[in-house]
């Protein structure tokens, strides 16, 4: 299987701190990959490098064989890398619908049209509603994003990501702060995408049951370096992972 995304010796340094250190990482086509690691291991930073929010000090990133190391973020999105954010990151004073619509619009490449576009608009709006339904937010469509409760914002975040219809989805703790009741719904959304088989998903999560359930393979980051890579089972059995990440209570336990 061809690797859709690959990094070589990817490194970034903040001052004296190596947040990501010579990471060789690859995702095969259609693979569901998870990244785990302690807080501050560099997972989010790694995502930032993949999506172009940060530029590496060293190393390279390849998307389907093409070197995209110095490509600006919007171009990467257009090339097929979409991401959600760990810290809720939406357009606060726009309505939920408008938030999603902006993403749909970008996906449909309606970017610089300055005058009139009513027909397409309708399509965009329709699609936005569809997405909101998917993430159980349709009744909040006209609320301002800033007024959503925390979990609702996370759902909006996911809807926006889905709207981009990128081949690769980078999900940074999509369910953090989401209530137990809604997690299964989101899980279902993610699983649907997985089963459709058109997308590559890279997931950062701390919820182990979710990781085990969904992933084809798991990468472990530790202090910026790649500690292990393997099937979920292998990883769970890895001793360092157990002591440094899972801790004692987790053995065999899943909530």
């Amino acid at each position, binding site marked *: 299987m061809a690797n859709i995304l690959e990094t070589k010796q990817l490194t970034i340094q903040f001052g004296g701190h190596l947040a990501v250190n010579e990471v060789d990482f690859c995702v095969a086509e259609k693979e569901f990959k998870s990244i785990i690691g302690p807080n501050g291991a560099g997972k989010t930073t790694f995502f930032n490098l993949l999506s172009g929010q940060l530029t590496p000090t060293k190393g390279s990133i390849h998307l389907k064989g093409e070197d995209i190391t110095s490509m600006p973020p919007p171009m990467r999105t257009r090339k097929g890398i979409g991401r959600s954010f760990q810290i809720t990151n939406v357009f606060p004073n726009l309505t939920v619908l408008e938030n999603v619509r902006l*993403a749909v619009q*970008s996906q449909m490449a309606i970017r610089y049209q300055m005058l009139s576009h009513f027909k397409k608009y309708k399509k965009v709006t329709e699609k936005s509603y569809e997405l909101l339904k998917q993430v159980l937010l349709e009744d909040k469509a006209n609320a301002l994003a800033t007024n959503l409760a925390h979990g609702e914002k996370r759902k909006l975040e996911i809807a926006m990501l889905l709207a981009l219809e990128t081949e690769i989805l980078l999900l940074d703790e999509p369910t953090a702060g989401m209530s137990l009741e809604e997690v299964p719904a989101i899980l279902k959304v993610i699983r649907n995408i997985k089963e459709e088989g058109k997308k590559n998903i890279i997931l950062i999560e701390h919820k182990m049951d979710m990781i085990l359930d969904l992933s084809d393979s798991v990468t472990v980051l530790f202090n910026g370096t790649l500690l292990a890579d393997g099937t979920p089972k292998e990883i769970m059995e890895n001793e360092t992972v157990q002591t440094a990440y899972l801790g004692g209570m987790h053995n065999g336990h899943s909530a």
Partner: protein
Amino acid sequence: MVIPFVYESRSTLILLTQIFIFAIFAMSYDILLGFTGIVSFGHAMFFGIGAYTTGILLQRTEPTMGLFLLSIVVGIVISAVVSYIVGLMTLRLKSHFYAMLTLAFASLFQVASEKWRTLTFGNDGFTFRIPEVLIDRTTFYLICLVLMIIIYCVLQRFTHSPMGSVLLAIRENEQRAESLGYKVLHYKIMASIISGVTACLAGSLYTTSLRFVNTSVFTMDTTLDALLMTIIGGVGTLLGPVIGAGLIEIAHHWLSGLAEKYPIFERWIIFFGIIYILAVMFFPKGIVGSIQGWKAEKRVKRGANVKQEKKIAG
């Protein structure tokens, strides 16, 4: 709209013409401030470019309609180029820094207009003749009115276009817009060009109405006028700046008029300042913005009631 022919009073006519011109200028500012979230302290730059281009061209040549139109085109081209270059240099900066840098650029233009005296006659400025057709104030008034309406419609269309909503997104959260696949800098520069060109047109009309131009068009005061009109009317509403321009000009006219009748209004500027203060206290989002807000609230209240009723019923 009021039927535009009824004004026998010339000063009302001039006042309205002035309002229309400043409404155009303020709308151009709103594209930056309200729709893209950029505070500029140097918007006078484009106003001044328009003013001087028209002034210089008409002063140096015959005041024909053709040349007048040419001067507008030339002004637009120059301001488009300038706003492109300035935008490229400045728009990467954040809020205050951007604002101060535009202030610096506008001041450099002001100094240039001061120093390049063979062209500009320094800060005294110069008078010039305008095309025969425009001399009639009613005609000119109608032209400004029509232009204002056209520009309002065009900008309204623009802000409601897909591109307009991207600008809003940038105003709200630049980084997020970028990660949705929008090239933020391009959008900002385009907004700044559109705004600059519109401001330039306002500048051309302004000098034409005065038949005179001097360095004051480049001053901070000119920018502040646009800024105040936009804020008082309501940022990001487009109609707001028009209302703001009207309100400020009329309040100004009215208060300074009172000074002649009532000695207590000799210091009318104090009352003028108080209007600004009260505007913020009672219309925190500007006049149009606040009214829209109240309307929305009412809608929500009604919505909420409906929802509650349903609940009780269900």
